[in-house]
């Protein structure tokens, strides 16, 4: 069943960025989301996560995705890692483990955070902070992963850890939508291409001045 999107459109700041988007990601498959800067990749992922209001249909297992369904089934990892600088690495993961459910030990180990578990998060490098953000995915099992450029700042080891995590997730029947510019090493079952032209056309069509309807 998995994730199905139909006629999705989404506006940011009064301008339409996505228009009539349709795709489906069945269980156990990984979709790679590509497109130039400004094509709407982050907007799409935030809309799928339910953080942005959108038009059209987002279905999970054939059911419209409301807030409850999303909070139980969707995990989102955006550009920001949601790391509290005052807390240590273990405290950061521990908080999310208590909030989302799950055990913090395996999540810390999977991304090689055990050696820096006692370190305050404000001392972490960008890559270490990203690992900490990604470790949240492994806490409580969520069927649908929405990852926004997860490989930024990661080294080779962490890339491998992410690859394993995504593969295990897909093998367990989960789906993932991953926005990325570079090669991620995950075989893409489905490719979703967003183009800057489409975003621009959507914007023009939603703007009465640019569409010429006022002429």
């Amino acid at each position, binding site marked *: 069943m998995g994730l199905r999107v139909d006629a999705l459109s989404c506006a*940011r700041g009064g301008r339409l960025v996505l228009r009539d988007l349709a795709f489906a990601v069945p269980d156990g498959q990984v979709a790679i989301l590509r497109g130039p800067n400004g094509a709407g990749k982050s907007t799409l992922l935030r809309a799928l996560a339910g*953080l942005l209001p959108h038009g059209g249909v987002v279905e999970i297992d054939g059911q419209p995705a409301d807030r409850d369904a999303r909070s139980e089934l969707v995990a*989102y990892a955006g550009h920001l890692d*949601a790391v509290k*600088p005052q807390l240590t690495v273990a*405290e950061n993961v521990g908080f*999310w483990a208590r909030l989302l459910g799950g055990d913090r030990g395996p999540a810390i180990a999977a991304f090689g955070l055990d050696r820096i578990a006692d370190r305050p998060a404000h001392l972490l490098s960008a890559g270490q902070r990203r690992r900490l953000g990604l470790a*949240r995915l492994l806490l409580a099992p969520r069927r649908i992963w929405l990852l926004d450029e997860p490989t930024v700042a990661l080294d080779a080891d962490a890339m491998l850890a992410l690859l394993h995590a995504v593969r295990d997730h897909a093998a367990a029947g989960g789906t993932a939508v991953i926005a990325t510019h570079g090669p991620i090493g995950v075989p893409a079952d489905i490719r979703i291409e967003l183009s800057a032209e489409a975003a621009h056309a959507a914007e023009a069509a939603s703007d009465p001045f640019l569409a010429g309807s006022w002429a």
Partner: protein
Amino acid sequence: MSAARAVLARELALALRSGGGAGLGLAFFVTAVLLVPFGVGPDPDRLSTVAAGTLWVAALLAALLSLDRLFQADAEDGTLDQLALAPLPLEALVALKATGHWLTTGLPLVIAAPVLGVTLSLPPGATPWLVAGLALGTPALSFLGAVGAAITVGIRRGGLLLSILVLPLYVPTLIFGARAATATDPWPALLLTGGVTLLVLAGAPFAAAAALRVNLR
């Protein structure tokens, strides 16, 4: 419940760590109150007439001091996005964060007020009523402030706007709370202070959650 406990424990830990601002409100409260005798003069009679009002106004300003970061810090580092997706209603999150703010800012003011009352020559008989009024009234300050903080979460340097939005809403609490410490029969004012707080506790989480949803876009 474990999710609620996790949020509250995190709020307290963050407030008590460096840069959290838990001690800041108390320090501001003490400093502001201790400045008043310099301005008004050391005459005990004159000080005692303004003591309750001074303590209450200082408490309002001290509560406001750390409110602008209530949601802003979480919005800036992406925590708010994750919390909005977590299996905890946004209304409960707001209530927990406001409770954490009261425990780290409002409660210390209540405890410090009797000591500062002595320096302002507050009549000894009025001290218990002042403390009771502050204990009943300060939760309303944190919860009303949470609404203002949620509205201004996306605004850089929103702290000033926050004070303009929130301070007028503090007026009923200020009037009844200060009256409870000065009136000959303090009960009606004290009960009204509690009533205002109950109204705010019931409504503010919903208003703040609605404002947060708008700002998440």
